[in-house]
């Protein structure tokens, strides 16, 4: 019996493959699966076997029947996919007409909006500041001492001694605190600038989202919760984050936040340089000197702030290997983000 099944299987696939049009394929189907087909005949012959053999052969034949049907179906798809409906004679394979062509949102700004949406859901309001900033807001009010190496971390475009292109979205923190009393929970997305030459991972213009929370008694633990909630929502993973102590003049304590590498799940890969971790933001507790610059009374409030680079997150999310692609505006790149919201 097994021998017959095997032979039928190979004969049926050969005949199916040889069928050059629908009619030929239909003939194959009838010859094998039809009422008088060879497989049907074998099924009929089962009754002559004893019970054990019958059960075994019956199961095998049913499997074969499925296989052959699938092979015929696949061949049918190969031969023409959608076929004109015999009844109407309309060629339903012709392309449709869209109400409008398809465009796309820029992946950077999509990521930026997604991030803002998550924080909006957590109760954060949104604001922006100027891109051409005073040295005062970009550095001095953020507790960067004059003529201190902390300023070297960020190569700055200057227009004169007092005016520069902001190197970070953090100056909006001070502008916000000057105007409003806590409780505050805000995010500040926007474009920032660094005076450096472009390469695959650096661009002199890029985007950040800054966050600020100030109240009577918010803590570093609240910061950790907020960051974890964001990471869970944005990256989907239940990946834990890791706080590493760091230094930013305008926060104290300061940390860098790492998340488990989304590409390798923490095992280590090229993207995370085998560490299993990806740095996603800088954060910390608002420095008392920043509160002082904003005009808040000593000791009344505590707060936390965080900032992340949108470009890097977009590159991670979409597997983009060269930051310059984000600013070249080439349709061969941008068209890949059609429908990405």
């Amino acid at each position, binding site marked *: 019996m097994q021998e017959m099944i095997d032979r039928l299987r190979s004969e049926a696939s050969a005949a199916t493959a040889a069928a050059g049009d629908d009619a030929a394929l239909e003939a194959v189907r009838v010859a094998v699966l039809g009422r008088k087909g060879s497989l049907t005949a074998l099924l009929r012959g089962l009754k002559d076997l004893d019970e054990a053999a019958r059960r075994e052969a019956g199961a095998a034949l049913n499997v074969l029947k499925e296989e052959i049907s699938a092979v015929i179906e696949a061949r049918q798809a190969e031969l023409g996919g959608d076929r004109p409906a015999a009844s109407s004679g309309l060629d339903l394979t012709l392309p449709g007409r869209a109400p409008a*062509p398809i465009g796309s949102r820029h992946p950077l700004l999509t990521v930026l909006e997604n991030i803002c949406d998550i924080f909006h859901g957590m109760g954060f309001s949104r604001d922006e500041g100027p891109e051409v900033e005073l040295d005062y807001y970009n550095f001095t009010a953020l507790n960067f001492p004059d*003529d201190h190496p902390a300023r070297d971390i960020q190569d700055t475009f200057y227009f004169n001694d007092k005016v520069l292109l902001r190197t970070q979205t953090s100056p909006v923190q001070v502008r916000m605190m000057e105007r409003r009393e806590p409780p505050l929970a805000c995010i500040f997305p926007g*474009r920032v600038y660094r005076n450096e030459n472009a390469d695959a991972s650096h661009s002199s213009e890029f985007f950040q989202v800054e966050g600020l929370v100030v109240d009577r008694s918010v803590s570093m*633990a*609240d910061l950790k919760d907020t960051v974890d909630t964001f990471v869970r929502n944005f990256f989907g993973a239940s990946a834990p984050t890791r706080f590493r*102590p*760091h230094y930013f003049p305008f926060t104290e304590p300061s940390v860098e936040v790492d998340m488990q590498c989304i590409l390798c799940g923490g095992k280590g890969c090229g993207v995370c340089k085998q560490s299993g971790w990806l740095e996603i933001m800088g954060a910390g507790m608002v420095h008392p000197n920043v509160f002082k610059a904003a005009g808040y009374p000593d000791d009344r409030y505590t707060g936390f702030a965080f900032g992340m680079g949108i470009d890097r997150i977009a590159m991670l999310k979409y597997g983009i290997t060269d930051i310059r692609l984000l*600013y070249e505006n080439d349709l061969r790149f941008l*068209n890949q983000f059609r429908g990405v919201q």
Partner: protein
Amino acid sequence: MKISLDWLSDFVDWTDETAVLAARLTAAGLNVEGIEQINKTFPGVVVARVLEREKHPDADRLSLCKVDDGTGAPVQVVCGAPNVRAGLTVLFARVGAELPGDLRIKKSKIRGVESHGMICSAAELELSLDGAGIIELDTKLPNGTPADDLFGFKDTVLEVEVTPNRPDWLSHVGVAREVAAIYGTKMSLPPVFNAVQGGESLGVKVRVEHYADCGRYTAWGLQRVKIAPSPRWMQNRLLAIGARPINNVVDITNYVMFEMGQPLHAFDRGQLAGNAITVRRAPKNTSVQTLDGQTREVEAGTLMVCDEKGPVALAGVMGLGNSEVSEKTTEVLLESAFFNASLVRKASRRMGLISESSYRFERGADWDMVERAALRALQLLQEHAGARIVPDWADRHDPDHRPADPLPLRVWQVNRVLGTAVNTGQVAQILQRLGLKVQPMGNAESISAGAVNMMVQVPSHRRDLLMEVDLIEEIARIHGLDQLTGRGGYRVPGGAVRRPQDVARDRLRGWLSSCGYTEIVTSSFMEAGDHDKLALAADDARRATLAVVNPRHGGDTQLRTVLAPSALAVSRRNLNAGATPPLRFFQINRVFRPGQPLGRDTRHADEALLPAEHEYVQVIVAGWRDTGLGGLPCDLLEIRGTVEAMAGHLRLPLTLEAGTDESWLDAGAAWSVRAADGRVVGVAGRVAPGVLAAFDVDGPVALAEVRLDDLDLTPAPARFEPFTRFPAVKRDLSLLVPAEVAYGQIRDTVDSSGGPFLESSELFDFYRGKGVPEGQAAFGIRLKFRSPKGSLTGETVDAAIGEILTALKDRWAIDPRG
């Protein structure tokens, strides 16, 4: 910064393997970015003695030698070094030896003579950069002793990222302190010299002009110095952390700096003029030759170290060539000082000269280390440069210098900021592990807002700890940031409301991309000459730009005042890349207009220096050459339609009015966009052919832009109005229109003469050509009449149409067709 673990283990013990140590340092804030294993080994290379040396029979420059490599029988080897001779003790690579650079020694024939190995030079073993000849060893070790016993070296090096607030981590001792704090163990400082030798006096007087510039200056004398290579172990450690060995004196000053963090400088005493050293500002611009051989301009006001003739060092940055230690040096003046961070930084910036010394001084030196580091160096110089230390030393320091005041610490505030529940005992213990002195205050256990629980004395190497919150950070680091457990996330009371501009921008992005437009992000900079290419008038206010004074090499400097050049550049790029037109793009981006009102409330007096930042939405259709209704170019039709639909989509009353004075648009194919109050808030139209040519765009471009920050983006509210359910009567008008009459004029006439029941009029056909008389066009207009009171009779509608036709005839000489 690189840290050698071999070196580090001089000062502190730890038990973890390297990866764990690295992880713990990273968790404490000293980010370990890389771990490098160094294993310098020379398999098959041994100590040997040259027994005989003769000339090679067939080559003038080669020698034929017999060496004893400890195996018994003399080995024949060909050698090319000029200094090889009988009796030398050398390093010999046997057949099968492996040398750096994957060089394997094989038995070979050189000019017909067999050679069984190689006598090695220092360069071949990568022991030095000097490859002049073979190594001449001075050792009594027996032949056959492995070279590893002399030169083998194993180490593990951590590459660490040191943040600007932690200059104390720029040394092995500083990192050892951190390791001790992490593991709760003790660390020990390097031993210091305390025996004084010699009888002569230093004979140098030191003067510091202003203690604010240099809080302390010490000078130490050394005599009978023998300049030679530094010991192998020191060279190995320096090489391991990426420093280049030079000679014993220079290496020792560098070694002590990397070990203890204090930069030192060695002067050749014989080259110093007179017997006085003065630390003072340069009175006027001068030019000097620095140790790196370059001539540099020094600005007036730069802090200098001078002898009686003039400058001998740029204080804290680099020594000068005139007093450099050389092979001939026999007397050394060693400087260990505390220079003002800001002055060192300014000098280093101005001259573009960043040295290991300036890097440390500008981040802040350690007062207490000035003397200790000098003593350490003296000890090493005595041991490894044969130096004799003179008994006295010069020390000038600010008499008003005081240690930092103790900082008050409230445990209540620690827990408030961190969200922890630590107690006074835990806090004190952590601070003590970090080497801070803790003085309990009042009721140490009382945790309340006002209670200071302890006073904390900060040592001189932690001058970054200035206030309570700095101590809180230390507690967080050592307590462990992974210990933080939150309350489920901070939620701001009341939640947030989206601002109209955010809603509008988001909707524009969504809608325009659904309409086939692709969003672009373009640079805020413009190219020089863009304004000329746009043919902006000479007095156009947009010609005033802000320019960066320190651009990237070759980068653009001016901030854009117009978006159009970026639209043209993106069109050109994609048309040239062969994208199929029509290409549709949009952007929401800013331009920067100096001297314009900011349109926001300001707090800081200098804000008047900032430019206004105007945000535009711009839509672009490029490369579309087809024409549509009325012979109008399709791109122009679409741009107009897009602006109108955009207004509808945002529920903003924007209107287009033919004509604009925008120089870069084609005057006959452009509109002004007006807001409800009549202000012009944008333009739309085709880019003028001359401008397209100037930007090298091969194809037409139509675009529209509307300034968003100038509009109230709150959508007009929706309010229901009752509508009539009686049926409408539709009538089509077919008109013959003289060519000079515009559709807009017909539309206005129809609307004003159609009577109370005319609900709408709509152009459904436009035709010019065969079947229509020359100089005329055929318009098809669909009219809809409706009454709220009941069904309209044919007579009422006919009467209304009669009025319309009469008006069209009277005003524009338009006749019904056929």
